């Protein structure tokens, strides 16, 4: 059938249908690009951390206090045979402080060296569309943690790399 045989209204309807199908395809593709986010509870706040930034989660029985370290560092522990510093995520985010150094930690790696973040609980893993997490830091002073997104149920998804590279995070060590 040639185009000459279709009236204008039918032509418009066909184009609209094609456009809708095309849009659905794009949406399907976009939804397939999701990122797994580990949701943890920190001082009554829900915080999300992209799972690909994490190395693991363990329960620490002992944490050795390191006198002279910055206040948000709870101490040192052993993780997979290596020394790791344990950071109070609540203290770093300035939203509270854990009661004890030992307990649950999620471990991230920076330049192939681990660092453990003390959290209260792990609430689960969510899949979030990648596009919602596509944020880049704005100008001005470096934030203590860039918030990539806040979900409908108030999970604040953090960009861990902004913490790990923050000047105050490793004031004397190398970054």
């Amino acid at each position, binding site marked *: 059938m040639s185009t000459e045989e279709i009236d204008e209204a039918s032509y418009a309807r066909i184009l609209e249908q094609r456009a809708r199908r095309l849009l659905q395809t794009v949406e399907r593709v976009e939804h397939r690009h999701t990122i797994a986010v580990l949701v943890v509870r920190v001082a009554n706040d829900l915080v999300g951390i992209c799972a690909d930034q994490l190395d693991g989660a363990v329960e620490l029985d002992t944490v*050795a206090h390191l006198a002279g*370290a910055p206040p948000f560092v709870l101490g040192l522990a052993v993780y997979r*045979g290596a*020394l790791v510093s344990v950071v109070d995520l609540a203290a770093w985010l300035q939203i509270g402080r854990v009661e004890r150094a030992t307990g649950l930690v999620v471990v991230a790696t920076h330049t192939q060296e681990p660092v453990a973040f003390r959290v209260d609980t792990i609430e689960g893993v969510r899949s979030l569309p990648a596009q919602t997490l596509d944020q880049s830091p704005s100008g001005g002073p470096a934030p203590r943690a860039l918030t990539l997104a806040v979900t409908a149920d108030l999970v604040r998804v953090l960009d861990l790399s902004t913490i790990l590279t923050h000047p105050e995070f*490793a004031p004397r*060590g190398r970054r």
Partner: protein
Amino acid sequence: MIDPRLLPLLPGFRAEVAEHVDYLQQLFETCDSLAPERWQADLKDALRRAHGVKGGALSLGYSGLGQAAHVLEDALAHFQRSAERPDSEWRQAMYDVAAVMRAMSEHDPGGDAKVGHDKVAALAARVAPFGPITEAVEVAPRAAAIRPALEPAREATGPGADPPNRAAVDVVRVPGAKLDRLMASVGELMTASARCGALAHAWSQDVEQLAEFLPKVSPSVRRELSAVLSRLEHQARRARNEQRGLQQVVENFTGSIKSARMIALESEVPLWRRTVREAAQLVEKEVVLHVDVAEIELDKLAIDQLSQPLLHLLRNCVDHGLEVPEDRFEVGKPRVGVIEIVARLRGTQVELCIRDDGRGLDRALIEQKAVVRGVVRAEDAAAMDDDAIFSLLFAAGFSTRDAAGPLSGRGVGLDAVAHAARQLGGSARITSQGPDSGTTVTLLIPTNIASIRGLLVRAEDGTFVLPLDAVERVTRIGVADVKALGGRPVVQIAGDAAVRLCALPGAAGPDAPSRKGRFPIVAMRRGEERLALAVDEVLRDADLVVRPLPWNVRGTPSALGGVILDDGTVAILMDVAHLFETGIQASFQSSTEAAAPAWTAAGETRTSGAAAPRRLLVVDDSLTARALAKDALERVGYSVELASDGSEAWERLQVEEFAAVVSDIDMPNLDGIALTRRIRGSARLAHLPVLLVTTRNAQAMIDEGARAGADEYVIKGEYAMNALLAVLARQLGKAS
């Protein structure tokens, strides 16, 4: 015949030449694609490398290699001067000479002159039209003495040429990072082995416990149980024996790795010589460097960390320490200045002395600069001995020069050396015998820093390692043995002079309820200084593998590293130098000698307490200092009011209530000491905690503050805010 003393140096030299040739050849291959600035920078580096090969070659008697490197240096210098890029023919010619240099280095000294002469001659012919560019090549006197007559250059490589020295292939260069990873793995192996031993031991104990039940069971069960227990006991014994065998293997392995990490100090000598020569040329002085470091080896990490600071120090010696020839002549010294580097083994440490015969240290000038820069007060400086005054030169940024020169004067050299020595668990000292008698910097560096023999001690905050070579003795004392001297706790051990007493982080104070009987103290020594450290428990001494602190807490002042113990917990290796320094900054509580002294946690800068908001009055004439203090204190829950001097503070204290006063000392109108006296003189305010905060770490100032009635004293500086928070929490806890 090659001098047998030079033989050990050849493998290292060959490896160095190979590395430089790799660099040069890569540069010739890629120079077309480099940006102009990068090309200039790389060209400079290439020149340095060619020059380095030339110097090493001539010192070892490689005349041919020295000549080849010289020609290449000329070619590189030509391109540096002309700012042109070499065309393909030039690049090929330089590439070939670099290859010849590598081939020459694989021969013994003397045999190199026969190799690749045509390539060198071809490049020399290319360079010749541009005239002499760098200084002529001479065989170094040392090499000349070994081989007075060098054979003339003969034909290039070919069937008749000597075969390369195969000994070169016995040297394998391993990247340092691989050795570090290997050492870390050994540490894990040691830990795993120790855990296996502990498990086997626990297994044996369980078997013994079960055996106690044998008499209580029926004979038939007893027979069965006895047989099972016997088998278990046998297996447990075997497991223990196997573990001992494993432990031995691990120890041998550890020894081998430690040995592989050891690098001869001699390897740094060419760099030292080059640095001294270049520095001397730059400031137009005549200097000779004597080195005596034979057979001394240091851990790779120590060599790495000391390398650059030592170069700083040598430049400092040339620029700052030695006089210009005319001045030397006037005071009856030879025109040529002498720098001497001597290394000796002292027990488990290497003593490295860097001496010059220059003008020596001027005590009066150092004192004057220190007073002008506010490092010390004039009256305190006058009371300090020479060692204390000279040690001010180790402070960051401290220089007696008014302006920085091309080599020194930024106050970096000595600071960098002392910092590196400390990071390695060693120490640095600077001495001078007086005007015109030179200066000596003495470094004490542990020979092996990857492992340490340490004393494991426990306090409430965890387990700590004290380096055993700093431990003088371990004893127990009672609360009554703790006295106060100048407001600070001291203890007398075995009739010796009174020693400062401080505590490990978290260790209970002498007046704590837990201190009912006698408690252990560890007497420590650093040079002439002594310190007694109260601990809760002394565990044992052991060989321990030290791991560097994690990346984000590296440089924490109180700790040098961590040790993973058999039970998987972490012990902190304490920085002895920091222990002594924080001990010096001991807090005081009372102005009377009789009262119980305050208990200072050595190295402690932890933030603690501050649970309930308290209203503080911060007094400081510096706006920045006030703002910083307010921000930090409010962040942890304090309510903060500000006053810009003692007078304003005093007025506010008359009408307002505060939980404590945090005051600077030097302020206009009414200073911190006078403010403290007024507070103590007031019936209403007499018990108000007063904390003095200042940049001055001087005993006289501490004593003056104590006499005025201040409760604590915090030295401004890095992490000072943490220290302030800790003492605030302590004082307010006491007050409540």
